[in-house]
């Protein structure tokens, strides 16, 4: 099940915990992967770990021309682009009262606008080939909201709207567009929380623990597979029961 042999995938934000796990999962299922990120060293380490069928493509997603180039480079390096995973994301938290325009713009640009640009670029080739998979990594807070993260939550809610609209536009071409919404996932970011904070978080999750990057990657792998052909426009929540939507 979930064989991606011969398929090509671009994963943005692969220098992070979740993105790296997604790249590994798709690669493990046989896909050739292009890994994007901002931290070259982390990408090179991941590439070395994967060995073959991997291309390293760093780019600054806040620059439109670099986003366009990334899509072109991915297609050029792999010959096609069958699977696009928009995983890259940044946060610039703060209460709205104190949130600067730059903080709002930066988060919307990288999280939402870059995802739109990559979708637009990728879908051209997918339409010609009459097949494709796009998976956008959103977040539970895109649905529930979160104080101090208006920009981040807006960008993640925006990705869900983008996902649903594009899914309707291209469904007739055998292209599916879905979102995966992680809840609390143990990453470098959550490692910084103290034990008290972690205990409080775990108490709010029915499963009683944070999720792992691999559990997010498994959801992405499913949506990228041939088996998920009839699933489109959906948001798959992977959150240990924290929110049931």
């Amino acid at each position, binding site marked *: 099940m979930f064989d991606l042999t011969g398929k090509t995938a671009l994963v943005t934000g692969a220098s992070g915990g979740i993105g790296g796990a997604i790249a590994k999962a798709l690669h493990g299922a046989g896909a050739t992967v292009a890994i994007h990120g901002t931290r070259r060293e982390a990408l090179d380490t991941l590439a070395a770990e994967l060995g073959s069928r991997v291309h390293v493509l760093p780019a600054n997603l806040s620059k439109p021309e670099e986003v366009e180039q990334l899509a072109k480079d991915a297609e050029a390096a792999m010959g096609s682009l069958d699977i696009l995973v928009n995983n890259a994301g940044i946060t610039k938290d703060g209460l709205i009262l104190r949130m600067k325009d730059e903080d709002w713009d930066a988060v919307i640009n990288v999280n939402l606008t870059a995802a739109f640009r990559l979708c637009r670029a990728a879908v*051209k080739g997918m339409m010609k080939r009459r097949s494709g998979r796009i998976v956008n990594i959103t977040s539970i807070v895109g649905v529930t909201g979160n104080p101090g993260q208006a920009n981040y939550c807006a960008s993640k809610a925006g990705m869900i709207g983008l996902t649903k609209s594009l899914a309707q536009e291209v469904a*007739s071409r055998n292209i599916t567009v879905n979102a995966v919404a992680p809840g609390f996932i143990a990453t470098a970011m959550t490692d910084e929380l103290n034990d008290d904070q972690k205990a409080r978080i775990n108490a709010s999750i029915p499963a009683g623990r944070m999720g792992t990057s691999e559990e997010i990657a498994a959801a992405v792998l499913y949506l990228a597979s041939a088996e998920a052909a009839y699933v489109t426009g959906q948001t798959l929540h992977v959150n240990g029961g924290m929110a049931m939507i």
Partner: protein
Amino acid sequence: MSDVAERVKKIVVEHLGVEEAKVTENASFIDDLGADSLDTVELVMAFEEEFGCEIPDDAAEKILTVKDAIDFISKAA
């Protein structure tokens, strides 16, 4: 002129997978050649690529038949 017409027809045949004989100048993409709205957008993009011209949205909306496409491209190119 005839060169443009031939290239346009070739793109339509390839893209919509229809018989060449059906692609007459008066054929409507949607009514006669079975295109859906997404096909018409793809055709416009294929024309842009083939002829290296830009077809603005308001002009693209008026390209309903093979002849419309040939006329627009002949003027633009």
